[in-house]
């Protein structure tokens, strides 16, 4: 058995899973120290279903902790920034476009040096060890705790980055280093930004991963611990300590993956209705369809692949406007004050939840407090909600083929079982903890993103090479080899390059290889 935990800003949810079945689930409040909220949730699980902590084979955590640290700027490390590629890149120094509060939070210890590569792997200029040693000395003076190193075209060849990292590490043995080729794809500024953010988070990551470990140990669980990444795959806790940015935006991914498991569907629309918004995404082959555009995190431009999710301002706490003009629901919301401000809890604000209770489709609070509502108003309000969600969901479809819809999240009761244009609408059991379930069932993956110059080579052979490398990376990351499959191949020819150049992105995923001790316990 294994455990999935979602540590959100408000709630910490936990689920106990046997294979792909949910054995128990709980929702608790997130605490400031993180640890005690998790301990509390684990105790809640045990209260619901007794289990032997020693029989837990793995624990998977999804968290917004690191994203929140970047947004608030709290606890970020003083970070040295080194870019290799001179004379290229001098026109736009690192951190040129950063918001001041974040740049100030990590300091502005920015350096550019020679090194780096052309698109085809040729050197732009040779690495200059003396130059790097001088930079290391300056960074040492400045008291940086971490260094982010980015070299031009390091996704094509990481040679310069690795060589520079060795020199920096020799000069500054106590400093932690993040390398860009391990973190991002082509697009220098975005990859560099991700690397700097990652380096700045290394202290926070060390503390948080320690808190996670303590929480498990305190609950008597001695199982491998994983964190979920934005693409719906897992990394082990040691990897997470070194690559905390990879956890960004894992929340929507987890809730969609959880919805897939609960509904048994791999291709569907997922509507996650919370207190303030409904987030609508699409699962293709069991994974969220990724968004295309750049994503800003705390005002910094990055190129993480986030799920393509559209949010509309409709949730359980949405305000119902009945004044002049047509009836409207949202986008304003009472948010987490639902249990004090909504009518069914004795408050004075009419919310979407009150409509659902009055209609008899939700059972929370005191129905007597909304018995006076005009049935026509209740009907119109719920119809308005259903129509808005159906309209937005329709724009997410990519073909006229019927696509089933799965409703998850605490506010999913607002949405009726039938929506115009959608034949199948499912609201599976345990839908309110889909996030934690998504974390629990996450797989491990490997990815390749590179520009290949076909130059007479067979296109199929190049793609095969990329597929094999991605699969190999998934196995190195902990996937059971027999379960690894390629889930995404994206091939984009590149304009104005000779020899039919093509940018190939391949992603492979597989099931997590649970440790042998765990497997024996599981089998007995």
């Amino acid at each position, binding site marked *: 058995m294994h455990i999935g935990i979602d540590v959100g800003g408000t709630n910490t949810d936990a689920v106990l899973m046997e294979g792909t079945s949910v054995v128990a689930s709980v929702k608790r409040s997130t605490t400031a120290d993180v640890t005690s909220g998790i301990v509390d949730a684990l105790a809640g699980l045990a209260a619901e279903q007794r289990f032997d902590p020693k029989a837990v084979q793995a624990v998977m955590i999804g968290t917004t902790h690191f994203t929140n640290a970047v947004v608030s700027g709290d606890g970020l490390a003083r970070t040295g920034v080194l870019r290799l590629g001179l004379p290229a890149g001098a026109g*736009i120094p690192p951190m040129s476009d950063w918001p001041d509060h974040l740049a100030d939070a990590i300091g502005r210890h920015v350096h550019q040096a020679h090194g780096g590569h052309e698109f085809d792997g040729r050197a732009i200029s040779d690495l200059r060890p003396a130059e790097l040693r001088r930079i290391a000395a300056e960074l040492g003076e400045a008291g940086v705790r971490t260094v982010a190193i980015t070299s031009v075209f390091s996704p094509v060849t990481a040679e310069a980055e690795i060589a520079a990292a060795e020199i920096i590490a020799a000069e500054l043995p106590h400093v932690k280093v993040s390398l860009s080729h391990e973190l991002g794809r082509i697009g220098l500024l975005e990859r560099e930004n991700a690397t700097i953010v990652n380096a700045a988070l290394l202290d926070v990551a060390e503390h948080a991963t320690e808190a996670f470990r303590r929480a498990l140990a305190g609950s008597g669980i001695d199982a491998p611990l994983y964190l979920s990444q934005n693409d719906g795959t897992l990394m082990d806790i040691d990897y997470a300590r070194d690559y905390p940015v990879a956890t960004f935006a894992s929340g929507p991914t987890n809730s969609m993956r959880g919805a897939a498991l609960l509904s048994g569907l791999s291709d569907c629309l997922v509507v996650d209705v919370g207190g303030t918004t409904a987030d609508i995404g699409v699962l293709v082959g069991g994974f969220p369809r990724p968004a295309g555009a750049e994503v800003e995190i705390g005002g910094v431009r990055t190129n993480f692949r986030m799920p393509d999710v559209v949010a509309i301002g409709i949730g359980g706490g949405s305000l119902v406007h009945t004044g002049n003009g047509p009836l409207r629901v949202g986008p304003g919301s009472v948010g987490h004050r639902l249990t004090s401000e909504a009518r069914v809890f004795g408050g004075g604000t009419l919310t979407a939840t009150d409509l659902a209770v009055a209609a008899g489709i939700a059972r929370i609070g005191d129905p007597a407090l909304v018995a006076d509502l005009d049935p026509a108003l209740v009907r119109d309000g719920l119809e308005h909600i259903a129509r808005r969600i159906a309209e937005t969901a329709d724009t997410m479809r990519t073909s006229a083929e019927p696509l089933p819809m799965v409703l998850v999240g605490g506010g999913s009761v607002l949405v009726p079982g039938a929506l115009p244009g959608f034949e199948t609408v499912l609201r599976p059991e345990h839908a309110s903890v889909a996030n934690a379930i998504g974390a629990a069932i996450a797989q491990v993956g490997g990815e390749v993103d590179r520009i290949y110059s076909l130059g007479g080579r067979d296109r199929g052979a190049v793609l095969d090479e990329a597929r094999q490398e991605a699969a190999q990376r998934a196995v190195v990351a902990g996937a059971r080899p027999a379960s690894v499959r390629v889930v995404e191949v994206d091939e984009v020819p590149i304009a104005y390059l000779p020899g039919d150049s093509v940018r190939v992105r391949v992603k492979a995923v597989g099931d997590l290889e649970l440790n042998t001790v765990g497997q024996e316990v599981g089998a007995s």
Partner: protein
Amino acid sequence: MSDFDLIGHDDVADLARGAAVLGTGGGGDPYIGRVMAEQAIRRHGPVRVVQLADVPDDALVVPVGMMGAPAVMVEKLPAGHEPARAVAALAEVLGRTPTHVACVEAGGVNSMIPITAAAELGLPLIDGDGMGRAFPELQMMLPTLEGVAATPMALTDEKGNSLVLRTVDNRWGERLARPATVEMGASAATAIYPMDGAQAKRGLVPGTLGVARDLGARLARARREHADPVAEAVAALGGFELLRGKVVDVSRRTTGGFVRGRAGLEGTGEWAGHTLALGFQNEHLVAERDGAVVASTPDLICVLDAETGEPVTTEAMRYGFRVAVLGIPCHPRWRTDEGLDLVGPRYFGYDHDFVPVERLV
């Protein structure tokens, strides 16, 4: 656009956004160019803008831009001085100091590069460009139709190399400059089509920077006010909405360094039941709605994100995008026989003649 006489730091973002739309799917992501232009203005002060009609006949006008692969430019960023060095290298062989900088094209990153050159050189920038949009090859400039030679032209890279070409015609300029650019690392700055003021007035498209700036500002405002950005773009450019819908199919292949592709769209909302096929080669070239051509090169075919109004490049075009497709009349000189020889549908391998978008929709 007579009020447009200065590009300050805060104008750059609007200009870049509008120029990306005029890039008709090509021209590269102007983000890198935008950051460079903002830095140049911060360092050297705002750039003076001159209307084409006010350029003296004996002026020496030098259009400036980047050549190379946009996909490389987002990774290997410029050193910063390449465009100004290209102008200097050209001035050296011309034996004269240029008086004005201009844009080779109004679309994408090349709307931004001339701003950095003008700021650094302290020269005024002409409100206009050589295409009124973006095109992939260097002979595809309206001054070609006026008999202006592309060469002598200068190419510079970030390492400090510079190269001056003199060719027998403008297509040879393309043939020789392209491989040199690749050897330089697939990204180089160019100063090209040197011309006098009289030629510039006949050859360039007037007012395009002002159009881009106003369009960018309208898109930004629409987004802030949750208005419909697509309607704003149609109004600003005097064009037609060809379809709104979802991308349901994209296929691409490379031939001779250029990407050719096709995207299929299905209409949504009031366009439900209609389909649209886009043909592209770096830029969007042909739009067929329900099987019939509704717009074709050299008219502008712009694809915008239906929600945000952000332009969608041909490289970024992906399955599932929700977009609006616009058709916009091009500059009238592109519609002449000589213009269509250079950039009409048949030049790009499509088997039909050009028909103006306003007659097709």
